[in-house]
């Protein structure tokens, strides 16, 4: 039930509402909880409300780190075999 789906803010409208694009589907959501959201931002949508502006930079950095984990683990594994 705590599912929240990333959506792109398309237009900001009256009364703290916004039209967002969720994988091609347009929905109206409230920005009451993320007043800082601007058009073009990605937000996490839960039950008709935006919960959080998604940090794209963090997302990309995380993926970069994760891609390098196998090498790191291998190094660790080798180091530990000797221990």
């Amino acid at each position: 039930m705590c599912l929240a789906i990333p959506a792109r803010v398309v237009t900001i409208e009256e009364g703290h509402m916004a039209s967002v694009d969720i994988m091609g589907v347009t929905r109206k959501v409230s920005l009451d909880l993320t007043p800082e959201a601007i058009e073009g931002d990605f937000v996490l949508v839960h039950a008709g409300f935006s919960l959080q502006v998604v940090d794209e930079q963090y997302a990309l950095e995380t993926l970069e780190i994760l891609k390098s984990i196998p090498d790191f683990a291998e190094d660790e594994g080798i180091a530990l075999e000797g221990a």
Partner: protein
Amino acid sequence: MDLSGFRDPEIARGLIDAIKATAAKVGHVKLMEVCGTHTVAIAKNGLRAVMPANVTLLSGPGCPVCVTANEDIDVAIELARQPDVIVTTFGDMMKVPGSYSSLAREKADGRDVRIVYSPLDAINLAKKHPDKQVIFVAVGFETTVPLIAAAILRAEEQGIDNFSIFSAHKTVPGALAALVNDPEVQIDGFILPGHVSTIIGSEPYEFLAEEYKVPGVITGFEPVDVLQGIYMLLLQLAEGRAEIEIAYHRGVMPEGNVVAKALVEKVFTPIDADWRGIGVIPGTGLGMRPEYDAFNAVKRIPVTPPPPKEIKGCQCGEVLRGITLPYQCRLFGHGCTPEHPIGPCMVSSEGSCAAYYRFTDYGRE
């Protein structure tokens, strides 16, 4: 924004290798995924099957519908039986059995019970039906509470006087404290809920690491996210650390959502809450402040349901505490299935039993 990397099989394979390498450095460990959405993600993606033999993933109490006490469901049902009332709720709540009935059965009997996607839909319904009382039966954790608070404030601002909330909300950290204090329960690390933490941040979990030396990692919901969370937990265990870390950085700030927390604080105040299977945990419920009595369904329409009774044979409570695995319950698959659920863990799409039943080759685990 391209987030498809969080479903990338290549990255997932790398993480699985890293998990195996790290798990080799620890003994048998039990990790609990607290959140029902994680339970579904783990089951759907078959992640239990790729875990090393010494890593057990337990499902926790993080399915709001499952932990709702019969008594609260009975109140919702009683509200639906009142004249000139429309009861609205999230879809998951419909089929959950209370002591004597369910909202779905009440609807079949002619009561006006409707599923809505958002409390804003309930407000719109109230505007459309000024002659009816529109009640939103609100279950959920910290993820959901702020938007209920926001909806109440919107209704107040718009002068809507036929909309109210029955609040059966619960908060997560106190339940985790109850689990680590339970001698029957053994948990070596927590896969902490991503979207609850979007709201509350990481600070409310710090006591787990500081007082109980149990590590936790706030984790997202894509397969790669979940594997990353498990990997980070195993790293902590292998290195003898106990910290609260955030893996789901793109959706969680350490301080949480400050605006949302302020709205919750404005409308709600902590109360004791009865958790199915766990019992009453002090301070883990959220009641509405007296200033908002006009929007409090049970203040507007006081109801007295008959005394609650438990469902015979159902082990949902033990499952929620990680003591019993779903398929160890005698009813699982024998009379209790998602089509004909007996207990709440099989009803909710996020219930551990439903997730195991639908996605897991449970017989062979």
